[in-house]
């Protein structure tokens, strides 16, 4: 069965420090991978996606993510965190094995940036 794991419920980082939010997945074949961010009382907003090609993907608000096929991971990163980055982050995967493919979301990681 396909699955997405976000092993950390919460990540705490000081402003200005680099941040990493972890995501691992288990799917058949090559996946499409996504990161979304959710602010309080709002829907999810798309940050970035990996389809194919360069393993380092750049997205909105200075975020980037690194695809590692051997480790089946797609960690979200940012070189210098801002307080405004504090939010809930979701990793998602879309497996490509059949017409029944659908996007599966992880359980989310709450990112807290302290001033």
């Amino acid at each position, binding site marked *: 069965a396909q699955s997405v794991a976000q092993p950390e419920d919460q990540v705490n980082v000081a402003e200005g420090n680099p941040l990493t939010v972890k995501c691992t997945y288990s799917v058949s074949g090559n996946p*499409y991978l996504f990161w979304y961010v959710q602010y309080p009382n709002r*829907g999810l907003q*798309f940050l970035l996606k990996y*389809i194919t090609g360069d393993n380092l993907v750049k997205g909105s608000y200075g975020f980037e993510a690194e695809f590692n096929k051997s480790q089946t991971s797609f960690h979200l990163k940012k070189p210098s965190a801002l307080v405004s980055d504090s939010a809930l982050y979701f990793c*998602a995967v*879309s497996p*490509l094995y059949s017409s029944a*493919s659908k996007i599966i979301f992880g359980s989310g990681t709450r990112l807290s940036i302290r001033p």
Partner: protein
Amino acid sequence: EAGVAQSPRYKIIEKRQSVAFWCNPISGHATLYWYQQILGQGPKLLIQFQNNGVVDDSQLPKDRFSAERLKGVDSTLKIQPAKLEDSAVYLCASSLLAGASSYNSPLHFGNGTRLTVT
């Protein structure tokens, strides 16, 4: 472009009552999704439409949930009768592309409807 519109924003009902949610996707978006997001969890797909046809409703509790997308635009999701465990945020999302291409197309989410069943 205008985003995905959902209403109402909040709804409180008693168990066994019925409730309906409305969604207006981004103009021109072929694919529409309804997700259920329980507190502390990621969104779970309930139903996916492509234009006005159902693509995937495998996780929709069909004994109490129903959804339609008339004319391939607006959509409504209904729960009848509601249970306590239906308390969640119901998110509508749309994507531009249809078919297999929809799976690499970013989703655009509305702000959701927070349902509380007492």
